[in-house]
């Protein structure tokens, strides 16, 4: 016990699930940020302040931060400190006096080169920013807006149909981008050794409270870190709105992660019905569009899968979708 802390021994002997507490912390932060209760720009300001004093290599991936540092470093100071005891001080002053013209001559050229380089990089930065803004898949503001939209719950019938496909699977089954864990819950109830991956931590509190195992990361991030052939089954859901390139990357990663004989389920919405099946903000801002089941069949066949069935299922109330079932061979 510290001298200043209130006593904690009297607190109820109730067990607290630390995973749930942590999920609730991220949930609370997301809510307080959205409500404006937490200072919006403070984190960026703090990073920027430290970056002023840190070497440029520490500034992470903030190009404008690094350029700001380059700007500050571009002017070369040719007037060195000359303080010091005798004889060092006078010697330094003499060396400075003798070499000043030469150092100034060189420094002017280096500074001119540095200024031009930084200016060119700033122009490039502006152009890259413009391209990012015009590219939905690369836009951070679109990504952060979509991040706040909750996924539409999966109809029970669909979850049961998927669970049926995976019942009896021997080995671990990953439900990627599992949202708040509705499908995952059905899979575990069906006796499947399933776990989830979901990057939006704010969605996880209830699922973790229910004892579901969910890794707080995206599908691609999780699959890329896996040992090849580690999964007996994989369900890809909620990937419809990813850019097409990202969907293809997931197909690649799936072919690596799913073991020979393992089952892959791709759950999607029919493109024609897609806009009506998702929240309006998602329909307007999503960087990608769902693929047709025929496209998935073709993509998966080219990556070592044999498509065994395409089920007609609903992915949201009154939203026709499909489940492409494929086996790794």
């Amino acid at each position, binding site marked *: *016990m*510290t*001298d*200043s*802390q*209130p006593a*904690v*021994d*009297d*607190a*109820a*002997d*109730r*067990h*607290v699930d*630390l995973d749930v*507490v*942590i999920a*609730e*912390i*991220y949930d*609370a*932060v997301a809510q*307080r*940020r959205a409500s404006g209760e*937490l*200072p919006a720009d*403070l*984190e960026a300001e*703090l*990073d920027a*302040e*430290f970056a*002023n*004093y*840190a*070497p*440029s*290599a*520490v500034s992470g991936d903030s190009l404008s931060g690094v350029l700001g540092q380059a700007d500050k470093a571009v002017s070369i100071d040719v007037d060195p400190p000359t303080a010091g005891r005798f004889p060092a001080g006078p010697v330094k002053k003499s060396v400075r006096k003798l070499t000043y013209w030469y150092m100034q001559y060189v420094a002017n050229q280096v500074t001119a080169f540095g200024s031009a380089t930084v200016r060119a990089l700033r122009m490039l930065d502006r152009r890259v920013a413009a391209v990012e803004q015009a590219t939905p898949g690369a836009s951070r503001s679109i990504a952060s807006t979509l991040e706040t939209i909750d996924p539409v719950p999966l109809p029970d019938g669909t979850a049961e149909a998927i669970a049926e496909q995976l019942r009896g699977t021997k080995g671990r089954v990953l439900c990627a981008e599992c949202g708040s864990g509705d499908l995952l819950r059905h899979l575990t109830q069906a006796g499947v050794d399933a776990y989830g991956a979901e990057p939006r*931590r704010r969605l996880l509190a209830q699922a973790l409270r229910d004892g579901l195992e969910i890794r*707080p990361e995206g599908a691609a991030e999780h699959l890329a870190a896996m040992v090849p052939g580690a999964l007996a089954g994989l369900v890809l859901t909620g990937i419809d709105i990813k850019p097409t390139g990202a969907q293809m990357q997931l197909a690649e990663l799936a072919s690596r992660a799913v073991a020979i004989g393992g089952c892959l389920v791709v759950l999607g919405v029919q493109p024609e019905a897609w806009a009506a099946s998702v929240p309006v903000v998602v329909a307007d801002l999503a960087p990608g569009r769902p693929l047709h089941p025929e496209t998935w069949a073709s993509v998966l066949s080219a990556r070592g899968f044999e498509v065994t069935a395409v089920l007609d299922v609903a992915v949201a109330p009154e939203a026709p979708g499909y489940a492409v079932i494929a086996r790794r061979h």
Partner: protein
Amino acid sequence: MPRAERPSVHQVVPTFASRDAIGNHTRIAQRLLRAMGFTSHIYSASAPRRLRFQIRDVRSLPSGPDAWTIYQCSTGAPIADVLAERDSPVIVDYHNITPARLFEAWEPRIARELDEGRRQLARLGRTAALGLADSAYNQAELDQFGYRATAVAPVLVDLDAFARDVDRRTLDALLRGKKGSEWLFVGRIAPNKCQHDVLHAFAYYRRAYDPNATLSLVGGPASVRYQRALLETVAALGLGDAVRLTGSISDAALTAHYRAADVLVCLSEHEGFCVPLLEAMHHRLPIVAFAAAAVPEILADAGLCLPKKSPAAVAEAVAVVLSDDTLRAQLARSAEARLGDFDLVHTSAIFTAAIADAVGVVA
């Protein structure tokens, strides 16, 4: 093997520092080795002058098949290459080597030493009789380096002795000046310890939760450049009155800091063990940490281990820990249970068993 015929088992520490975890570990290990009947001395290439009668010059390290050496490895050092060449059996006691990338931008010279250390660690792995690791995290690295035999033996820490004395003046001063919650982080001022992240989270916490909170960063500088950047950031943020960088302090003063603090916040990117976590548990101080390297393993369920460390999330976590009595009580209970795993009697038994097994004697 009868005790009289036992070989000698010496220890080599590249740089011996009396006030750090490896220095303390080495001294306790020496006591244990002597209690096992081994002749055991500590050798170092660099040690404080006042310890010259206890720490021997590494150039006088005995050699031969009966002169075992335990190499305390945490960085690169010329002696490691010498040990790899000798005909004496070697045990590597691995405390982990900070990845060089974390130092490159700040201290390129130290980064090169760290890189060198990893190369030497791999080289020693070809001949070492045993790779002893503080944590399973460190053991996994030794396995990757190809060590033929590895074992986990936690850092030897005498927590009771550490907390026996408290610097009353420091404690009184800390408590007198306290108007809000007191954050604490203990560790050398180094880029891998990420004191700047603690500072950012603390600044956020002051703005969003408790404007009177204070922060103590305890530890001497491993990177002067990094420390300077921290000090300049503290000044630029106007936190000069709220943040203390104490430098290296005595155990009694450190105990005072633990007693005055309300929470230990550890946001290190890399820790091979992290003794301050145990010290905080010993003082029943709640812990908020970033889940990196060996931290989740050492902390287990005795603290909140965050998967990401945005200032907002860390500040919220501290606010939750400080406001929820039930959670804090549970963390205190878990800490007490977890400390049992690192009790000196228990860890001494693990250490002596591992050494006896490697050397081929009965413990």
